[in-house]
């Protein structure tokens, strides 16, 4: 499917949507129905609605319908208001964006219009520091080289400036011509891939070059980017409104459900079944009693011939009586405490990173409890465990290893001498270092040069080269300028063969402006470059050097070059251009063409870059492993480097304490055998106190994941530690999925774009707002500044959240069951007819206020101090195993509520027997008994008390009396004077006191 965009042609403009952005979920008209529909998709809400509707039938309702409708409407109104407010804010910001004034070309003249009126095909003019209003194909800029710089932070979170170039066919058009330009752009239908734009452009006569010219993402200005360091730029609108790359990728992510939520849902289901059972049993018993006993009770005056539906009346009454078993307030309470947990994370000073000025942030406010239940952590290496601050340390040029003694090649006299002596190999090596990259040098007014690089490795290489006097001074469009020993060398960059994670290398084709010679410069992973060496080159020294460096934990890159003949280049260049303008499978085609050029390289040497571990990484891993969390390291780096880093950060132990098992092989059989062997060892030694870990590389992993998934799953269960190297982003995500399928709680932590898929896949995604941009942090549920904060996030925040939610949710059921059991017990002394002991106001207030508010202060409860927890990380095992919320703890609470209900009820009916057994008084005595009990249960269950907790618990207690005394002054209310009477009776207070002591037993 393609889209043809006719530049500046009014007649085609109406084929596509206008540029009106709409992020809103609702309109004014559909808000109510749509929002209600969304809310009623939840089972709980359907249940409450059904109950509320049943209550409208006055024959069966035990209480005033308002007692359910009231809370239901309040709860609905609260969440609807929140939605409406969010949506209104979105509407306002959309409106601002839509009404922003932009310049477009209409009928050959520039006009100022609102951004929402831009149509596909319009030419849009943007000035410096302005936001791009829709997706544009660049046609002109103020810079003579036809480039401009954009900041794409809003799109992908990367903060460096990116260079965008105008298509070759548009080069040289002046501003006057740009107004009149006509042509057609052939581009794919809108998609959300912000790294790809496989299109082409053809200008119509009279424009000189009406060949088809390929377009890539480098020729575009995407919506939401900012134009920087460029006076103006203009482009043709290709995607508008919600069809832009940004608009397409907007989407509501799947809400994540925590293990606790799932458990609470399950328990709710169980309670629901229990409720049905109660209804069936009591309903039938009620009908039997009615027929055998109630008909004899003449004063009840049952009719002898009743309509058939009378048989349903008593069961339905019990359904309504028991409907409070499922607490209506639990959802709201949970939402509240969860957002508090998230706030506590945002506010936490101790996980604020001073160095980069990043506070921790919980983007997903709903899953904090899961942090306390993590079983597997899958971590990226570079930038997550390490600082991602690359420093050029050593190199091996033409068989000589530099930087071995001092550990810093830049200070190695030999290398400095070699540079001074113009040693050809060294110079070539440094030239490749300086040129073979996508770094942008920026010259400050004072003359110093700084580099803007997307890759930290490239940054390190260019800086090292400049320290060794090969300085990349400027890069203007296709021209690069290098200063070497006060000599200026000009190069023209002909083509860039970009880095992809499949190719694992990048190359650049340059021509020396002086000699006109054409060179291919390549750099990449050793296994991607070394096989390309020309026949006869001795690569053994390089292989040895790579091994040696890897053992030191250094990242190695292999550099090579080749001189190209003009014919060869021209021939290849044509193919390359063709591949680049392909609309289908472009990436694959380009890779194939690139391979045609990248061969018979002259390997120049190996560079070794150090990436230091972040502070506190070994300690953090140690503590988290003590707390029973298993670590898997997933990295794109090579095996030996990965193992080295793993050793450094305590992930694995060296012999004899630990043992590393390798799964490798090139063919399927080899891999299968290797896997079998490892699995066998793992099974045998799993009882020994030896720390086993396995290592697998991306190649073997690919085979395993497609062929031997079951065996690998078993291995995954057995192994506490694993190192997976050379893995691609999708493999990372697959591994997460695999562990998830074994019912483990997984946490994925990473810092770069290649971790995004894994982060989104895992139960909990943690992003490190690192040097590789904010992509990972944006995609993650939690973002932190440093790896070591993970300790606090899990042990402190996760654990507290788990404990608090466990208490809150079970308590919510406890208090609902308590009141419900009292009702059920009362039905046994009221002829099983479904009389409600409590009046409507009390029932509603009990659920919504008296018992809901004090327990919310559980967000302040700390069972153990933060210090104790971090000193004894094993305690987290309790949370992981779900010790505080599971069917048996729930059964405990269930039993407790039954016991409390029986005691309260028995005490009440015995203390208030005979002449005192007045309905309203007795109901109030039972209710007060429940309130006293719940206040003491909350007090007993909390471990620490701040003044806020005291205030909430005892304030609520006092409020119960104040409210009920107030209601008792209203003659029309059901309980007129009741509370005053009770408070004056000594027997009331004596009854209360004995009610609470029963919780000691």
């Amino acid at each position: 499917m393609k889209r043809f965009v006719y530049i500046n042609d009014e007649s085609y403009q109406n084929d596509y949507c206008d540029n009106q952005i709409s992020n809103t979920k609702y309109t004014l008209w559909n808000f109510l129905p749509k929002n209600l529909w969304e809310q009623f998709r939840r089972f709980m809400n359907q249940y409450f609605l059904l109950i509320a509707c049943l209550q409208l039938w006055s024959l069966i309702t035990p209480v005033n319908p308002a007692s359910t409708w009231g809370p239901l409407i309040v709860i609905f109104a609260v969440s609807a208001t929140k939605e409406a407010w969010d949506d209104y804010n979105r509407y306002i910001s959309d409106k601002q964006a839509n009404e922003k004034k932009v310049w477009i070309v209409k009928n050959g003249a520039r006009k100022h219009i609102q951004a929402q009126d831009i149509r596909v095909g319009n030419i849009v003019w943007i000035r410096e520091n302005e936001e791009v209003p829709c997706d544009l194909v660049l046609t002109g800029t103020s810079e003579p080289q036809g480039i401009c710089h954009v900041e794409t932070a809003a799109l992908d979170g990367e903060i460096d400036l990116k260079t965008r170039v105008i298509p070759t066919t548009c080069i040289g058009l002046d501003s006057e011509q740009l107004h009149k330009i006509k042509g057609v752009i052939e581009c794919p239908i809108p998609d959300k891939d912000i790294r790809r734009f496989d299109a082409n452009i053809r200008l119509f006569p009279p424009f000189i070059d009406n060949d088809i010219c390929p377009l890539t993402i480098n020729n575009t200005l995407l919506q939401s980017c900012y134009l920087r360091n460029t006076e103006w730029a203009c482009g043709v609108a290709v995607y508008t409104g919600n069809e832009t790359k940004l608009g397409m990728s907007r989407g509501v992510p799947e809400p994540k459900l925590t293990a606790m939520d799932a458990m609470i849902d399950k328990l709710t289901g169980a309670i629901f079944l229990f409720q049905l059972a109660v209804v069936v049993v009591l309903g039938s018993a009620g009908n039997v009693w009615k027929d055998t006993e109630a008909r004899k009770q003449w004063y009840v005056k049952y009719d002898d011939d009743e309509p058939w539906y009378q048989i349903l009346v008593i069961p339905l009454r019990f359904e309504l009586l028991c409907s409070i078993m499922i607490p209506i307030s639990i959802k709201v309470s949970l939402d509240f405490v969860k957002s508090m947990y998230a706030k506590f994370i945002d506010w936490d000073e101790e996980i604020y990173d001073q160095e980069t000025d990043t506070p921790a942030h919980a983007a997903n406010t709903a899953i904090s409890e899961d942090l306390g239940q993590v079983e597997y952590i899958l971590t990226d290496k570079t930038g997550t465990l390490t600082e991602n601050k690359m420093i050029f340390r050593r190199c091996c040029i033409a068989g000589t290893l530099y930087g071995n003694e001092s550990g810093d090649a830049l200070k190695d006299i030999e290398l400095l001498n070699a540079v001074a002596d113009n040693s050809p190999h060294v110079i070539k090596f440094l030239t490749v270092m300086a040129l073979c990259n996508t770094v942008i040098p920026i010259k400050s007014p004072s003359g110093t040069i700084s580099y803007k690089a997307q890759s930290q490795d490239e940054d390190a290489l260019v800086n090292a080269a400049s320290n060794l006097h090969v300085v990349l001074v400027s890069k203007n469009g296709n021209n690069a300028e290098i200063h070497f020993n006060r000599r200026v060398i000009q190069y023209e960059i002909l083509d860039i063969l970009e880095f992809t994670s499949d190719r694992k290398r990048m190359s650049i084709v340059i021509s020396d402006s002086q000699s006109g010679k054409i060179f291919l410069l390549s750099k990449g992973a050793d296994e991607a470059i070394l096989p390309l060496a020309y026949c006869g080159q001795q690569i053994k020294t390089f292989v040895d050097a790579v091994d040696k460096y890897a053992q030191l934990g250094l990242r190695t890159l292999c550099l090579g070059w080749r001189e190209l003949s003009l014919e060869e280049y021209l021939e290849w260049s044509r193919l390359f251009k063709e591949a680049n303008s392909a609309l289908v499978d472009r990436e694959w085609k380009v890779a194939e063409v690139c391979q045609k050029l990248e061969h018979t390289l002259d390997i120049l040497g190996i560079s070794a870059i150090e990436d230091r571990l972040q502070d506190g990484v070994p300690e953090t891993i140690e503590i988290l492993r003590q707390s029973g969390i298993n670590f898997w390291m997933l990295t794109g780096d090579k095996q030996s480097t990965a193992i080295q880093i793993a050793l450094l950060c305590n992930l694995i132990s060296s012999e004899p304490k630990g043992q590393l098992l390798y799964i490798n092989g090139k063919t399927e059989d080899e891999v299968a055998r290797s896997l079998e062997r490892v699995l066998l060892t793992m099974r045998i030694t799993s009882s020994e106190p030896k720390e086993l870990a396995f290592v697998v590389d991306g190649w073997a992993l690919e085979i395993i994941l497609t062929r031997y998934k079951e065996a690998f799953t078993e291995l995954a269960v057995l192994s506490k530690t694993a190192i997976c190297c050379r893995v691609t982003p999708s493999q990372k995500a697959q591994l997460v999925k695999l562990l998830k399928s074994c019912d483990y709680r997984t946490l994925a932590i990473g810092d770069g774009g290649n971790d995004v898929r894994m982060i989104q896949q895992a139960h909990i995604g943690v992003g490190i707002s690192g040097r590789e941009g904010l992509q990972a942090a944006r995609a993650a549920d939690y973002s932190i500044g440093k790896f070591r904060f993970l300790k606090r996030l899990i042990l402190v925040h996760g654990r507290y959240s788990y404990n608090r939610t466990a208490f809150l949710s079970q308590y919510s059921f406890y208090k609902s069951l308590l009141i419900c059991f009292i009702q059920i017990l009362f039905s046994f002394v009221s002829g099983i007819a479904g009389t409600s002991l409590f009046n409507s106001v009390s029932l509603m207030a009990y659920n919504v206020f008296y018992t809901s508010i004090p327990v919310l202060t559980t967000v302040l409860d700390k069972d153990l101090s933060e210090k104790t927890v971090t000193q004894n990380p094993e305690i987290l095992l309790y949370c992981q195993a779900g010790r505080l919320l599971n069917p048996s703890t729930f059964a405990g609470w269930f039993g407790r509520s039954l016991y409390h209900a029986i005691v309260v009820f028995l005490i009440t009916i015995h203390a208030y027997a005979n002449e005192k057994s007045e309905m309203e008084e007795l109901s109030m005595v039972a209710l007060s008994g429940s309130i006293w009990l719940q206040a003491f249960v909350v007090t007993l269950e909390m471990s620490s008390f701040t003044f806020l907790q005291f205030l909430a618990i005892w304030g609520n207690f006092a409020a119960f009396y104040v409210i009920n005394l107030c209601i008792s002054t209203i003659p029309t209310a059901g309980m007129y004077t009741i509370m005053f009477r009770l408070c004056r009776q000594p027997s009331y207070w004596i009854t209360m006191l004995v009610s609470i002591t029963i919780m000691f037993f």
Partner: protein
Amino acid sequence: MMMDGSAAGTSNGGSGADGDAARRNNTRMPKYSKFTQQELPACKPILTPKWVVSVFFLVGVVFVPVGVVSLLAAQDVVEIIDRYDHACVPPNMTDNKLAYIKNDTISKECTRILTVTKEMKQPIYVYYQLDNFYQNHRRYVKSRNDAQLRDYKKSNTTTSCDPERFTADGKPIVPCGLIAWSLFNDTYSFTRGKENLTVNKKDISWKSDREHKFAKNVYPSNFQNGALIGGKKLNSSIPLSEQEDLIVWMRTAALPTFRKLYGRIYVDLKANDTITVRLSNNYNTYSFGGKKKLVLSTATWLGGKNDFLGFAYLIVGGLCIFLAFAFTLLYLIKPRLVAFELRSITVK
């Protein structure tokens, strides 16, 4: 997810740039406060053995005396209970009590002799007690209309009074509903020897009910006019606020066994006094096997003769003291460190 955040960034483009500037100028470090850092001063009660033992001991020490006092109060109450529903049926009709109670031609008068066991100080409360009578039945308890009783303008509203809303010819009943319809109609009068013991029926209902729930200007109308007579008839010239028996009856009981105040006797009774009760046994409890009892009782600060609370306190208090001793012994014989004292917690 990633785009979710940036969507906001697009639309309010300006603020993105401002935010960047602000970021450079001032730090994004969270503001310190004890609340945000979860460091509010908190007291942390730990249930050490000492604490537990002292609490139990204290509760025991408080509860036992309270229990004793309550029991003594209950013991002070003198109570005479006389079940008469069975005895008042003529001997020839004990097999068919229902026929007896339904036959209006048979006299329902009956005489009972009570002996005072202990001295009874005035006021002596006269109660009637019904057993197995479900005033709390769903159908019964809802069958009333409070607005009608309270407000003469609403005397025609009889909603929720089913099945006693209208007379056969469609006139609204005041007071409507099953409760009023089934008003208790046994009567008692007492003599000691020759001396008449007056039963004072004034102020037997709650003052608040007389003043606010039953109006002075609402009079019974169309009451007990149907084919089926439930209970007592009301004098239609007396306003509801003065129909105290009705008001008492309409304070429905929460339990199937209940007592309702019939009146008070302001005479001291001495031990071994014999009291003759003349009663008319009108009310039908025979159809459902309910008992009717006449109760004469004195009262104390704690109410009537109910030793439940006293025993409950003694049992709880005794149990607490026992546990306190048991725990102390256990602690002395086999001291066990509290988790908190152990410092490290073993998890199994």
